[in-house]
């Protein structure tokens, strides 16, 4: 198993798919390396938040995902 990445909103467009896998374990540096440069730049933006298994990270650089974990990349919401 690996780490599942979930892309929401316009990040899904940029990634070309709503989900993909990355090698475990995965930390913040590893995540940025696993993404294409344009996507990594977006994900680095202050406005993009990260959730690990449904829990929002207050500091995304502290990401530490293991096998089977789900990492969601969340751009600013549009609201309902």
């Amino acid at each position, binding site marked *: 198993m690996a780490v599942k990445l*979930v892309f*929401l*909103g*316009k990040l*899904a*467009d940029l990634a070309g798919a709503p989900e993909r896998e990355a090698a475990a374990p995965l930390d913040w540096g590893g995540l940025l390396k696993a993404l294409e440069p344009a996507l990594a730049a977006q994900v680095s933006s202050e406005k993009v938040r990260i*959730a690990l*298994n*449904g829990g*929002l990270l207050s500091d995304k650089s502290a990401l530490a995902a293991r096998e089977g974990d*789900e990492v*969601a990349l*969340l*751009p*600013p*919401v*549009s*609201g*309902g």
Partner: protein
Amino acid sequence: MAKDVRLLTEPFVPGALVGPFTDAHPGLGGVCTFVGEVRGDDAVEALELSHYERLTLPGMESLADETLARFELMGLLIVHRVGAMLPGEPIVLVSACARHRRPAIQAVDFAMDNLKSNAWFWKREKRGGEWSWIEPRPEDHADLARWK
């Protein structure tokens, strides 16, 4: 205090939800309901709302809890569509019933302000065949700030 929060993937008829919700609260003084629809102006052809399973519904549940804690209600119903929608289709429904009218009206106002700028939805719309992503309007953030 009954709480009913739903994410729907299919079109819904507001009256078919509000009728049973109201009937479930005998003794109520009033029920206030807001229904938002996909606007058909500005050449919008379609709207697509995506959500993130692990955040969206829990987020709506905790908004419902906060609304129930803040206003004196008998019941609260929050329903949101996700997926692809056409102009004229209902997208959101908030209904609050209470013994007195002002808490019911204020609860709907509060829940809608939160849903419009805070909820975990990503929305894109199609105009002239092109999709584009939408961010909340500045007014939506201003509306929400009223409750701080």
